[in-house]
């Protein structure tokens, strides 16, 4: 009886061990590939492990698959697997980590609204160690959405010294960096004085071009009105004038948007530089 029990026990132990040996070896291999930066290969092995260990897939494997897709730039798949890992994980801290990675994915792909949805679902009380990270990501999301007041409030919670806090405040107080040039102002300037909008946005050559072109057409129109009749001038010169005049103020607004985005990028980089040390 004792001997038979011994035999049964050994064979029962052998069976799962035999099966899991393939998985654990593969897991070790995949982890080493990931550490070495062989992401494509690691992804293959992790997916193989995930596929053959269903339905009891290790949530860490799903998290790693998500990380691999993220590194490769496949945001859609990365988000999908961050979701899978989030719902498979049982540890709160790890679930939050998956949530942060998902939010960061959204931030990098400029889906700030979706990033906010993820971040606002993080329980602040349960994860005090993650507070700085949460506030940083929330600040980034609000900054991306153009709500600088809210962004400033979150960014100010990160530095623990007054000097850095003052630097952050000074950055947000710098209206020139965050709000200018204003596309509407640029557009209206060019409506009243063709080319003025382009000067305002720091494009003097484009401004001179616009001014000369529309100015020439207006001059031409007046000459034509003098030589022939005003109606002739209107019919002949107006289509040309309308085309270049409208194009001028639309381009001025376009330049302003681009320049303002560049300024905001610069402001954001400065902000990260201040917060990095914290």
């Amino acid at each position, binding site marked *: 009886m004792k001997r038979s029990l011994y*035999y049964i026990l050994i*064979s029962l132990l052998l*069976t799962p061990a035999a099966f899991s040996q393939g998985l654990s070896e593969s897991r070790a291999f995949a982890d080493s590939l990931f550490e070495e930066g062989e992401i494509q290969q690691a992804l293959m092995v992790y997916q193989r492990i995930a596929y*053959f260990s269903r339905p009891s897939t290790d949530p860490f494997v799903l998290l790693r698959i998500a990380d691999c897709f993220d590194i490769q730039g496949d945001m859609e798949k990365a988000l999908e697997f961050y979701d899978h890992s989030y719902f498979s994980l049982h540890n709160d801290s790890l679930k939050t980590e998956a949530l942060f990675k998902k939010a960061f994915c959204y931030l990098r792909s400029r889906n700030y609204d979706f990033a906010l949805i993820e971040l606002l679902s993080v329980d602040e009380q349960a994860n005090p160690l993650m507070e700085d990270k949460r506030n940083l990501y929330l600040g980034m999301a609000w900054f991306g959405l153009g709500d600088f007041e809210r962004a400033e409030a979150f960014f100010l919670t990160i530095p623990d010294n007054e000097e850095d806090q003052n630097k952050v405040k000074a950055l947000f107080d710098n209206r020139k960096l965050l709000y200018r040039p204003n596309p509407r102002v640029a557009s209206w300037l060019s409506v009243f004085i063709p080319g003025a909008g382009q000067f305002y946005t720091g494009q003097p050559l484009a401004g001179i071009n616009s001014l000369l072109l529309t100015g020439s057409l207006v001059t031409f129109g007046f000459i034509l009105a003098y030589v022939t009749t005003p109606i002739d001038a209107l019919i002949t010169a107006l289509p040309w004038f309308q085309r270049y005049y409208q194009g001028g103020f639309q381009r001025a607004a376009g330049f302003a948007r681009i320049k303002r985005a560049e300024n905001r990028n610069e402001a954001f980089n400065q902000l990260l530089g201040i917060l990095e040390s914290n």
Partner: protein
Amino acid sequence: MTRSEKSGIKTLLFLAILLLTAQASKSQNLYDLDHSKQFARYLMLTRQYQLAIGEWERVLFLDPADSTAQISLVRSYRLAGNPQSAWIKLNQWNPYGPLTGESATEALRLTLQLNDFQLFKSTLDRSVNLSESQRSDFLIGAYLIEGNWIKAKKTVDPSGLIAPGTNKALQDLLLSTREIPYKSPGGAVALSALIPGLGKVYSNDWKDGLFSLVFVGTNAWQSYRGFSQNGPRSITGWIFGVLAAGFYTANLFGSWKSAKEYNDQQIHRIRHEAESLLYTH
């Protein structure tokens, strides 16, 4: 039961369990042939065709004679956007002989994806055991993808390509091409020569046509007024005349181009739809 009989049963039981364990041990290898095939199929299902290629290559390394794996590899290459490599692989296994079943359908899809319609015809000739409806599907597909239908439909009745059982969506697509008019570039130029901008209106680009009419018309009118007031020495007459001539010439070229673009857009639209019905899966 005696003691020895009991002992014998226990030994047999133990051996049976060991055998089961051995079976389980065999299944531990995630990289063996069976597991590799399963995983390769999973990769194809999840549209990771580039990864599936690597997996099917390994399967074939383990079992070179597996014809299903051969076709799956070819399909993976095709769906990964590499029809040239798919064709090379297919020809490695069967360069000249008859093509049957999945080999035939994959080969025909590849020739269409490669835009090689001569090769399509020769491959169709090599394809045996294709059903009438399958043959019809591919012929219709080739007809639509090649793009000559837009000119040819006056002389060719494409409905003759339809056979019983032909894919309904392909049939509808084929018949819908009858409603698509061919815009003659020469005709567009002739119309614009008569009335500036009319050629563009003919090509469904009425806004551009209107602009052409306004620009050519107003400049021509100003030129006429200049010459009628001051005779051949009128400077405004000459300036506007040159401008009008320039716009008129540009309008002729623009009309030709817009008719061509209209035809190209229709060809591409029909082609895209035919491709999605024939070989994006």
